[in-house]
């Protein structure tokens, strides 16, 4: 069973390694976001502390959309989707495989983007770094889980690249609220106890949107 999962993830990694489409697009987009933000806001030192958490999340969420959109559209060419559906296993493994693949690519870009924000805006971060990494990590798990699922759903439509943001953003609102709020608390030097409420909300969201797509994915993939 897990060989199937491994094969799907490996296939995505190899393809990404050869083409570098997704990660490069996400990185360039995030870089541009940094540039645009620096023009859009008057970023003096006092302001930066309040705006930066939101900016990081906006960059992450918007750049992830680029990757998510491609993840299932790629399978449409050459009827690759048929091949995936013929796998001799549970179809939910396609979901898990795609989720893991997307998560890895987003993680990779995130590792470059987030330090980039601190460098380009010259912000001396004083909060807890492990806590920041933890929150961004669990936040992205939830966002990629629901995003992968809705990307699979949207890929059935001909206007999928238009449909995905419209259906994904309202659903991920709780996650983004919790993410931004806890990140800005971390920026103010909060401890885990102070952000625990938000962390639990993110974890609830993660669990719900890993379990529910797992149950419903068969219906989305049906031909």
């Amino acid at each position, binding site marked *: 069973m897990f060989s199937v999962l491994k094969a799907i993830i490996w296939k995505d990694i190899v393809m990404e390694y050869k083409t570098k489409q997704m990660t490069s697009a996400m990185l360039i987009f995030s870089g541009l976001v940094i540039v645009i933000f620096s023009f859009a806001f008057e970023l003096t030192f006092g302001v930066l502390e309040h705006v930066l958490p939101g900016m990081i999340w906006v960059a992450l969420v918007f750049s992830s959309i680029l990757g998510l959109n491609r993840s299932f559209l790629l399978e449409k060419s050459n009827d690759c989707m048929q091949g995936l559906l013929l796998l001799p296993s549970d179809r939910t493994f396609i979901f898990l495989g795609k989720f893991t693949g997307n998560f890895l690519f987003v993680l990779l870009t995130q590792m470059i983007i987030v330090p980039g924000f601190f460098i380009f805006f010259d912000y001396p971060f004083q909060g807890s770094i492990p806590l920041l990494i933890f929150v961004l990590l669990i936040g992205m798990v939830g966002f990629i889980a*629901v995003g992968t*699922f*809705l990307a699979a*759903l949207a890929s*059935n*439509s*001909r*206007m999928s690249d238009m*449909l995905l943001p*419209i*259906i994904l*953003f*309202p*659903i991920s*609102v*709780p996650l983004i*609220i*919790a993410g931004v*709020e806890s990140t800005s608390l971390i920026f103010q030097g909060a401890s885990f106890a102070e952000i625990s*409420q*938000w962390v639990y*909300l993110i974890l*609830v*969201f993660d669990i*719900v949107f890993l379990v*529910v*797509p797992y149950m*419903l994915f068969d*219906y*989305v993939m*049906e031909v």
Partner: protein
Amino acid sequence: MNTNYTLGSFHKYLGWITFLAVTVSMFFIFIIAPPDVRLGIVQKIFYFHVGTAWIAFFAFFIVFIVSILFLMTRNRNYDVIAMASAEIGVLFTTIVLITGPIWGKSSWNAWWTWEPRLTTTLILWFMYIAYIMIRVSDMEWEKKARLSSVFGIIGFINVPIVFMSIRWWNTELHPVVFGEGADQTGGGISDTMLLTLIITVITFMILYFYLLKKGIAIGHARYKLDDIKDKIKNVM
């Protein structure tokens, strides 16, 4: 498939009942119910606001239920009900989002605040707009019905999470601003006002079923038209 889904005589009676109920509730709202001590005549919007809000949530709940039923049975009728109910839900949520700021302007002196209930309602509206976007996208009906059912389920599951997160988000900024409806155990609402509210909610309920029946009939007519088109295509 049974294609005999005309409106029928029951719908006609329902129409008359709706007309009667609307008349009665208008009478109650504008003649019987006393104007609010503090807000005056503007408070009358309360009845429409609460009534439509209740029906909007009810409509989305129906979408959720029939979505599950559709995935289990694959019966086209459930799909038609889901579409009709979602459309009504979006319509009523829109009315809530319009009447809310009008009332808010006179009662809090602000068109909009990012208060939990308002924010949740707005997100709910966006969510079901997205649902309708899936509905009108270009796919075969089986696929469309299946995918929108899945989204209908996911969307409704998300509502409590949204509500919870927004509640935590703004706890300090906006305590309960005003008592709303019967769940607030009185909250300064007089008996006549409560009676009027109940009558209005029942009226909106009847109106919902009237619109639902119309929506279902239109949905079936649409499918029937598609079938006929397919038949003509096959002949040619």
